[in-house]
């Protein structure tokens, strides 16, 4: 019954005082929010704490949501700003997430990954591990586009860029993902192509 309500209907009822209905929105978006945060931080505990903070922030500023965009777009904007603030607090240079530090972070992930490389992987595990090897920005972009059901315009609104820039960034992110898959999962890819 509650699942049939649209986000806007749930929000207006929450604003009218039905606080418990907010749980519907949490259930609807918790996996998206949690995954997006995990793209920034590898630590599940941090990700869970940040996700909780984001939903609390979203609840407190719910009356600022004017319905000009999708609720998910608005929520992902909070996710992004909160993640950036979190990384700043952790003394990470977040002026550009494609910078050297992030590169080192990714390199570390790659070396750790190589140590535990399995013989053969399911397609799901392969794609997800390849995404984890990307920089946080690339990984987040791919997640928003493929899983977050966000258009280029909406992603632009979230990351503060115009749709054309998002398009170029997305092309590059996918290119890098393909490179990672070819580099680390060539065996699995050949198997897929053989199917």
């Amino acid at each position, binding site marked *: 019954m509650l699942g049939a309500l649209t986000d806007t209907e749930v929000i207006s009822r929450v604003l009218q005082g039905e606080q418990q209905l907010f749980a519907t929105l949490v259930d609807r978006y918790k996996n998206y929010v949690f995954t997006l945060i995990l793209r920034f931080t590898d630590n599940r505990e941090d*990700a*869970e704490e940040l*996700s909780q903070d984001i*939903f609390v922030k979203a609840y407190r500023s719910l009356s600022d949501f004017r319905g000009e965009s999708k609720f998910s777009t608005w929520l992902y904007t909070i996710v992004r700003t909160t993640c950036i603030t979190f990384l700043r607090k952790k003394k990470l240079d977040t002026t550009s997430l494609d910078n050297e530090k992030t590169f080192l972070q990714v390199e570390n992930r790659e070396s750790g990954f190589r140590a535990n490389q399995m013989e053969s992987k399911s397609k799901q595990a392969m*794609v997800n591990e390849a995404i984890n090897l990307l920089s946080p920005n690339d990984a987040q972009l791919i997640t928003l586009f493929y*899983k977050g059901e966000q258009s280029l315009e909406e992603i632009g609104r979230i990351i503060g860029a115009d749709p054309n820039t998002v*398009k170029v960034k997305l092309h590059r992110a*996918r290119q890098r993902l393909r490179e990672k898959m070819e580099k680390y999962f060539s065996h699995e890819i050949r198997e897929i192509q053989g199917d």
Partner: protein
Amino acid sequence: MKYGKFRGTKKIEKNIDNWSELCLHHQSISNQMEPQKNIEERIWDYIDGLSNTEEKTAIEQLIATNLEWQRTYRELLEAHLLIAKHTELDEPSMRFTRNVMEEIAKYKVAPAASSYINKKIIWGIAGFFLTMIAGFLIYGFFQINWTASNSSDVISQVNFDKLNLSKFFSNTYTTIFMMINVVLGLVLLDLYLHRKKAQATN
């Protein structure tokens, strides 16, 4: 020795040949890569449904007739489907929703920012500063000796002697203005500290 020198020269010549070959090869690779990049971008747009009707028809035709386009399309479509179908979302702990609901029970939805940010005040402040800037500009223009406009030295056209700043900064009005600013600053500081204290006690 002479022979050695000759062989050395030959080697250098050969290296030069290789080098120029290498340059040519590199150039041809870059020339090939550029259209390839373009092909990929156009195919990605096609796959994402971002191409317009004309472009769509053109790409479909190229895929049907050109082997290079066909191969690239197959590769990109494979990658696209793999990402779209097999990217999975992580899940937080089972208690996550309950934790959030327990946390938000402590709070109320804050009033919309537009309800407490008074636009009239913002426009008032903006108006005040604009009037000040306009006033100074007008005053400055009136100080310029326009009759001496033939002179190329612009600085000399401004009669700085007439600018009696002490008249503005030493009179009673300036003192009152400064006093009001100080009082307003103290009020704002008091409000800020009060809010901080309230947040800390919450």
